[in-house]
């Protein structure tokens, strides 16, 4: 929460450690802090999986195995409750989303400015410590889920999906009419339907990713505000009564916000997971005729 000696505005701490391959093209840059942290989290999860794999017991599970089995059971039950058919990919996907997003979110409770200053020791100007605060990560996950949704829509009910794209929400009713003029209007409305349907479909990954990004970004900004407004940036600030009280209040507020933000991180991980499962479940629902 607090880190002594922070300087500069909040905006300065919201910059990424990035490398640009083409200054003229903003797409051609890579956020190394996000990449480094996600690779570290992913590696940690894989190492943990390998470690746990060597310790699995067939009998009554204990400790970490027990916790992981409870988590997998929860994920399996969530998927089972939402899915009309069994798809072996969904539960591992949901587990990965939940654990990965939660671990990334949890990094937000590290003291504000800490990673920034640690990175400064290595000569870096900026470093963002929460990968989910980088829109690229939520969007990447949401797009993966969206591609899977499209894949299953086309695989399981292609005709129905295309009909929905072209004939919903207006044209279907009009085309069912016996009046030829109404039918023509229905045909003319097909492009409008397509636009609306595309917007509807695109809203899914957008809302999924921006919800996570917005919550975590706001949380980080509040951490930075608490640190900037209430915590002393230099040792001299602690020597006065006001400085001491401000520091104490800052620590209390920061601790409270950390606990709340931990809960928010867990909640956002769950929301991201459950919405992904629901979107995929909708794609698996049998077509209504």
């Amino acid at each position, binding site marked *: 929460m607090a880190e002594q000696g922070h300087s500069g505005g909040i905006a300065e701490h919201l910059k990424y450690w990035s490398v640009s391959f083409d200054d003229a093209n903003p797409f051609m840059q890579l956020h190394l802090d996000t990449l480094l942290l996600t690779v570290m989290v992913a590696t940690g999860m894989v190492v943990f999986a390998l470690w746990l794999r060597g310790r699995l017991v067939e009998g009554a599970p204990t400790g970490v195995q027990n916790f992981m089995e409870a988590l997998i059971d929860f994920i399996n039950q969530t998927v089972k409750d939402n899915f009309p058919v069994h798809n072996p990919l969904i*539960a591992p996907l949901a587990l990965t989303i939940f654990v990965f997003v939660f671990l990334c979110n949890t990094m937000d409770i590290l003291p504000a400015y800490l990673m920034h200053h640690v990175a400064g020791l290595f000569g870096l100007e900026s470093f963002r410590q929460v990968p989910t605060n980088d829109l690229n990560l939520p969007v990447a996950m949401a797009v*993966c889920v969206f591609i899977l949704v499209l894949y299953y829509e086309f695989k399981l009910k292609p005709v129905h999906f295309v009909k929905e794209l072209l004939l919903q929400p207006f044209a279907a009713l009009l085309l069912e009419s016996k009046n030829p003029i109404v039918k023509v209007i229905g045909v003319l409305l097909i492009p409008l339907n397509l636009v609306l349907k595309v917007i509807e479909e695109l809203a899914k990954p957008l809302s999924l990713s921006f919800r996570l990004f917005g919550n975590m970004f706001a949380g980080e900004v509040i951490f930075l505000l608490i640190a900037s407004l209430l915590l002393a940036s230099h040792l001299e600030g602690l020597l006065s009564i006001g400085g001491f009280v401000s520091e104490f209040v800052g620590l209390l507020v920061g601790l409270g916000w950390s606990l709340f933000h931990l809960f928010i991180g867990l909640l956002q991980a769950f929301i991201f997971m459950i919405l992904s499962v629901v979107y995929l479940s909708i794609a698996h629902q049998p077509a209504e005729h």
Partner: protein
Amino acid sequence: MSIDLTFISQVIVFVAMVVLLWKLLYGPLNDLMEARSKKIAEGLAAAEAGLEAKAEAEAEVARQLEDARARAHDIIAAAERRAAEINEEAVTRARKEAEGILDAAREEVHAEVAKARQQLREEVASIALLAAERVLEVELDAAKHSQLIEGIVDKGLGSA
């Protein structure tokens, strides 16, 4: 806050993580849980089958006990009937034997009496002859002879 190459890298990291965690974490744990669940379900089914078998065995035991009791009751009743029959037969036989013995004894008594009578008659006759011989040898006196004969007869009968 823009989409850039990081997006591509995150897609790669995310997809790789899904595949790796599926193979290394979810798969083994889920297989283990399914195997355990199956084992528990089999155990429960076996326990339920055992309970059913126990109930069936208890019912069978109760039924067999009931049959055995009924059979034992029949056997006891038959034995009692047989005992009564044997007793009745023994009594009848004993009665018949007793009657036979009595009849035989009676016949024997009759025979002995007849024999004794015959013997007595013979003895009386012989005594009478003897008495007559004596009378003839000595002297005939009606009063005296008659007293003598009666005395001899009495004597003979008394000795018989």
